[in-house]
């Protein structure tokens, strides 16, 4: 039974948090930032596998772009070294620029794809780049028996 939310505001006002799923880091290629694309079982009834994998792969690509070692990063590093790293105080690094792009992307994905399915993706930077936290919400108005939602089965007369 998929709960329907039309936008993030509706999610905010009428949903209660049911569960959280954590997508862990994938260290198979070293210490660069990558997340596992394995589809968690808790999301099986909530979102299509392809959509989820696309989101994670896009995030991985963004992080790879931020940490790419190439001409531009060397130039930035050498310039910073010659100015005794004072340039970092005034200039935004390439990594920070990519992080802003990632934040915007996650916001778009939340609005278009995840919130209508009752899910919310937290930016990994808020969790120390350790995990992608996906919160699963239940419609508070429904009286279903899914975990987290409450239903009344007995009460005294008011």
């Amino acid at each position, binding site marked *: 039974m998929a709960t329907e939310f*039309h936008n993030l505001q509706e999610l905010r006002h009428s*949903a209660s948090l049911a569960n959280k799923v954590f997508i862990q880091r994938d260290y198979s290629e070293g*210490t660069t930032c990558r997340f596992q694309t394995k589809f968690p079982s808790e999301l099986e009834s909530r979102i299509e596998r392809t959509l989820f994998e696309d989101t994670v792969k896009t995030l991985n690509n963004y992080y790879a772009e931020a940490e790419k*070692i190439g001409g531009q990063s060397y130039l930035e*590093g050498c310039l910073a070294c010659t100015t005794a790293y004072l340039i970092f105080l005034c200039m935004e690094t390439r990594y920070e620029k990519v992080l802003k792009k990632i934040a915007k992307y996650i916001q778009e994905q939340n*609005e278009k794809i995840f919130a209508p399915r009752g899910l919310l993706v937290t930016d990994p930077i808020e969790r120390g780049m350790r995990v992608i936290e996906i919160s699963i919400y239940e419609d508070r108005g429904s009286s279903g028996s899914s975990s987290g939602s409450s239903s009344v089965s*007995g009460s005294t007369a*008011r």
Partner: protein
Amino acid sequence: MKNCEYQQIDPRALSVSPMSAQNRAEMKAQRSRRKWEVFPGKNRFFCDGRIIVARQSGVLPLTLGLIVVTCGLFFAFDCPFLVEHLTVFIPVIGGVLFLFAVISLLRTSFTDPGILPRATPEEAADIEKQIDTSGSSTYRPPPRTKEILINQQVVKLKYCFTCKMFRPPRTSHCSLCDNCVERFDHHCPWVGNCVGKRNYRFFYSFIISLSFLTSFIFGCVVTHITLRSQEGKSLIQAIQESPLVICFFSIWSILGLSGFHTYLVASNLTTNEDIKGSWSSKRCTEESGNPYSYNNIITNCCVTLCGPMPPSLIDRRGFVPLVEASPAASATEIELPPFLAKNDSNMCTRSTKDVLARMVHAFDSRGLCPPGTPKTTPVGVEVSSSPSAGCPLFSRSSRKRDSLHSSNPAFRLASPSPSLSRNTMILGEGPDVGFIPIP
């Protein structure tokens, strides 16, 4: 699509969103605090979170003092003589090296070395849940290591009990700062901070510039003394006034340290790994080396020193999200009225005695809640006294529902348990009591 202004939703705020006006006013009255004020590690912060140092600043003042005193003596006593006899560029070069060394030192000391924030309680519970597959309800600490493959080589990840997470590769927990630091090199008392992923390049430029500075000063001082002795002037006085002794003793240690770190940079190792011998050929039985090395000295150097600058993960100057003191209690307070309003007399057909009987039976048979039930929504009876009595009983009653059907009705209604009498008393106090058993 409506005009949604997206703000990062705090899930805890979501579950209690229809707040009463009084609660909202109270929360606004609380001063919003920055995250550095509630940081759990042993660090000190200055300039409202812009500057971070370890709790014990170590001998950083001594380091600064030594550098300043040495350079001061040099500029005061050696430079006039050398400017006169050699060239005016000597103090200029000295000044540039001095500035470079001091700025690098301050950057190393005041930069976040790559501290990993501690795991949130939900994350820690998720990790424990993944490990504890036996389903045992008693608390068992998670195992200490997890093996992963990095570039086809097996690497063991250790579990950090303080930070409640498996440490990423090359991360180590500094006991002095009480933080997990990424690409942990060492904790440097001279600098008064850990040296890790984010400030290693500053540390390296500090020791290299310091090596150049001390070598330069040493060379100038020796030149000065030589020139003076040739001119036949007071040699002893010149030696006394120049920073010869400081330079002589420090130059060997600094040059040695620079050489050591140049070797580490070229082979993409950290001091920690080198000391432990993690990737040494003697320790590894099969042919396995450092999985992080690019097997090319120039690439290793460029990656370590000129690679992209990673951001600080601890967000010192961010604001702490305001959280309700007791989200569970307020959640039930708020959820109760709509449900009670919706439900009509059909819901009241189940008698109070029946519900109480289930409570009692469940309580007697199972006892209190085990400590490790993170996902169960705690439920409170809407009374002021003894909410804890209500909480475990209802969570137990949901699980015991099947067994209760077969129990003796006479037994259920007639059991004289002290908890029953207490709950009867509670219910007798007022009509506005609701029960929300967990399904």
